[in-house]
């Protein structure tokens, strides 16, 4: 199975301004040396706490943020080296679905305008064929054609999210970043949208980077899952492995913290102490050591590298960055 997307040592640092002349006095390492790959037709789930750099990673891959360093290979092309004109051409191949169903659609544009725009920009087809494509997309996301001339505010959150998905599909991308695409939805609608995404992926063979803070959601939809903590990937494994045999103490804590909708569930909960450290001055060594129940001396001194510790049931390697292993 070939990898559609390969991310190598991706970094995204935001400059911190300060001092008398408001020059850059330091960097906020939102994404720090992250590598992973996604095979064609696979979904890679990304979980982690708020502010750990998930969105930044997703956006850096699409070059909506300019990466500070690293390589991004999409279907053989190094996205990170394209100039702006080439980039526009490659935007067809990668798209994004956003979290906020209210903020992600242009409020003063009709569904029709929103869906036609990407094709117009890229000069795909003629007006008639574009229209046809729009209708086809609406059908795929399960909406009737009579919505075409309505404005976003006339739809419910779930419906908007579908329009957002349809927009991402207009250019027939190979790769889509879904950044918390279902987090803002009510549970009953959330599952509808999750089903839709899963179906699209199966039918169209698109690769997804599925970002969420909800492990349960990610586990359901992903083939492989990466756990992020303070800008770094701390564990990568196939979704079944990660749930069955979490290795990193953070992953364990994360899993046990998920409230299970079953009053009889008897899982032992690991309650983490303390708060997420500020990414502005991360702790030395392993970033998790300040909250880690199993921290050792070495953790303060060196940052453990992400290393493969075994192979899961479906041939995917299980990687973890922890001194315990």
């Amino acid at each position, binding site marked *: 199975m070939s990898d559609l997307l390969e991310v190598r040592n991706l970094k995204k640092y935001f400059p911190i301004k300060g001092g008398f002349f408001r020059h850059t006095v330091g960097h906020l390492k939102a994404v720090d040396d992250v590598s992973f790959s996604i095979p064609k037709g696979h979904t890679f789930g990304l979980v982690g706490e708020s502010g750990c750099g998930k969105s930044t990673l997703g956006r850096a891959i699409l070059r909506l943020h300019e990466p500070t360093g690293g390589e991004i290979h999409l279907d053989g092309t190094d996205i990170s080296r394209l100039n702006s004109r080439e980039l526009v051409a490659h935007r067809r191949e990668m798209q994004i679905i956003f979290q906020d169903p209210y903020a992600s659609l242009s409020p003063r544009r009709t569904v029709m305008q929103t869906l036609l725009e990407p094709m117009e920009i890229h000069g795909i087809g003629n007006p008639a064929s574009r229209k046809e494509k729009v209708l086809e997309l609406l059908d795929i996301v399960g909406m009737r054609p009579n919505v075409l001339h309505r404005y976003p505010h006339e739809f419910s959150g779930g419906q908007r999210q579908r329009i957002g998905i349809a927009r991402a599909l207009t250019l027939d991308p190979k790769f889509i970043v879904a950044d918390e695409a279902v987090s803002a939805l009510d*549970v*009953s609608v*959330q599952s509808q949208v999750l089903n839709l995404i899963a179906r699209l992926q199966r039918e169209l063979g698109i690769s997804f980077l599925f970002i969420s803070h909800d*492990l349960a959601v990610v586990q359901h939809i992903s083939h492989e899952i990466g756990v992020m903590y303070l800008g770094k990937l701390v564990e990568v494994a196939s979704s079944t492995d990660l749930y069955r045999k979490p290795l990193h103490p953070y992953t364990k804590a*994360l899993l046990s913290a998920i*409230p*299970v*909708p079953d*009053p009889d569930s008897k899982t032992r909960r690991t309650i983490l102490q303390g*708060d997420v450290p500020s990414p502005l001055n991360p702790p030395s060594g392993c970033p998790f050591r300040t909250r880690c129940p199993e921290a050792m001396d070495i953790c303060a001194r060196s940052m453990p590298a992400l290393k493969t510790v075994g192979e899961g049931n479906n041939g995917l390697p299980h990687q973890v960055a922890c001194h315990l292993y």
Partner: protein
Amino acid sequence: MTQPLLSVKDLVIEFSTQRGIVRAIDGVSFDIMPGETLGLVGESGCGKSVTSLAILGLIPSPPGRIISGSIRLDGRELVGLPESEYRHIRGKEISMIFQEPMTALNPVFTIATQMTDVIMRHQGMTRKQARERAIEMLSLVGIPSPGKRIDEYPHQMSGGMRQRVMIAMALSCNPKLLLADEPTTALDVTTQAQVLEQMVKLQDEFDTSVVLVTHDLGVVAQTCSRAVVMYAGRVAEQAPIHPLFNHPQHPYTEGLLKSIPRIREQKLDELPTIPGTVPDLLHLPSGCRFVDRCYRADDACHQREPDLQWHNDQAVACFHPVGEAS
């Protein structure tokens, strides 16, 4: 049988909006026993917050208005209570924690000012005593070095800490009832677990009744003893936690429970869903509010609204509860 601490009966609340009169709460009833934790669940917009605000007498008016019904605290009627008297109940007998830890605290005053104001007002302490009490409360909710942090401003704290401050503040006057409106929704799972645990612990300690408003059934399962499931301004089902999760009777509860994504050994190809969306309160279907999305609906459901029917300690508003032959 013990008297309920709080008893809500046939509450009806309307909002007048530009588009017309919205009946946000339409005949809601439930009781809370002393020391009990009651979950109030339902999807966005079903009226959870409005209900809890109504208990505190904080429905923004205009546009909101309590049309009818009663809310009794220890037998005392709260609906129609004048502001001047209500003020003495708020914070003292009933406290509230709000969802947004970022905005619920006043950004321009220190934690100390905000907490001591409340304590002084309701406990008649001097500022010094109140401050001591506040520090004690902060340490109870697990804030490290509370003596120092009490003089910080809200923005200097993380979301989880702020929420804990809110809890400390809410419990500082030993209220009989604590209303928690989605207290952890805005927090990360790990923080959420911390805060919830803290809350449960303190509740035991202070023997406070809690109404926990949430849309997360997982949270309910782990913290509540009983739950009320609301749908579009009405109570759909009300039951102790075990029967509710194991034998839901309302098709909505059932659908809700099924569609929650949970970590499963065996991955499902497709998550079960409830088709459709929550109806707009201005354009409710005739009959049962859930009728358009219900797989068990028949003509009767289209014609009449079902009332809440009690079976032992479980109540359901459905003509064809799950488990009955349809």
